[in-house]
């Protein structure tokens, strides 16, 4: 009896500690956050093309607004602790740091979108502010496991 209880306790502990394998519903969670992160990636790439003068800058304000709005919902999409996709477990292991970075990202992109709308896309200071706000790599290095 005592042996059975010990095994049951160990099994329960294992269930708590082990990363969860994605179920059907979990896949929805992963898919949803990927839609959000891919939107950020596509819009940042479009902004990068404008900053490198590869394409005209007429849509600058729109891209920045799209990024700022999407950044607002990004953190929420990571709240369910579901491992998988390109997210490293560190997202949830270091949640305080991850969520702090996401909140800063959201704040900075909102700020730069508002400035672009106010001063127009010709503002000479805009490019540096955009580069600062879209410093994706520092988070990706810590929290993203890019699929090959």
């Amino acid at each position, binding site marked *: 009896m005592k042996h059975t209880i010990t095994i049951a306790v160990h099994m329960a502990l294992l269930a708590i500690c082990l990363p969860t394998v994605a179920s059907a519903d979990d896949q929805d969670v992963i898919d*949803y956050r990927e839609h959000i992160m891919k939107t950020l990636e596509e*819009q940042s790439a*479009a902004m990068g093309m404008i900053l490198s003068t*590869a394409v005209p800058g*007429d849509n600058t304000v*729109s891209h920045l607004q*799209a990024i700022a709005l999407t950044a607002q919902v990004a953190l929420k999409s990571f709240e369910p602790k579901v491992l998988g996709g390109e997210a490293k477990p560190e997202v949830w292991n270091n949640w305080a740091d991850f969520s702090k970075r996401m909140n800063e990202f959201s704040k900075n992109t909102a700020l730069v979108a508002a400035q672009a709308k106010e001063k127009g896309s010709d503002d000479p200071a805009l490019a540096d502010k955009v580069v600062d706000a879209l410093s994706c790599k520092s988070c990706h290095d810590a929290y993203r496991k890019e699929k090959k």
Partner: protein
Amino acid sequence: MTRSGQFAVGCAIFVALTVSTPARADDQDVIDYRVHIMKTMEEQAAAIGQILQQKAPADNFTIHAQVLAITAATAKRAFESKVLGGEAKADVWTHWADFSKRLDDLTAATADLASTAKAGGVAAAAAKAQTALNCKSCHDIYVERKK
């Protein structure tokens, strides 16, 4: 100018005006840029689809609708340069009047969706989402999916 010279110039002008241009380095930028815009819409439409199927939190519906509307408004400009390539069929430019009208309609419909969602949330906007996100009707004509 001799008859053969006139013929050569005529051919050159005809070819320049009518033959599709293969993508150059700069042209690839044009293609890449519009692909970023179309993929954004694809991702946002998919997120909205998940919410409508109750597979994602409804709280974010309005924001997705806003991002979709903002992005739709940038799409036509991205296709104005006649550069063949990517998944766009040549029909985009040969039927520009129809294509651009459809993009204008998409812009208007997504803007309406966003403002309805802002005022009344997902419950009020769900029915409009089906109409606004009728992507297939355009894609069947103007998109050539890569395998």
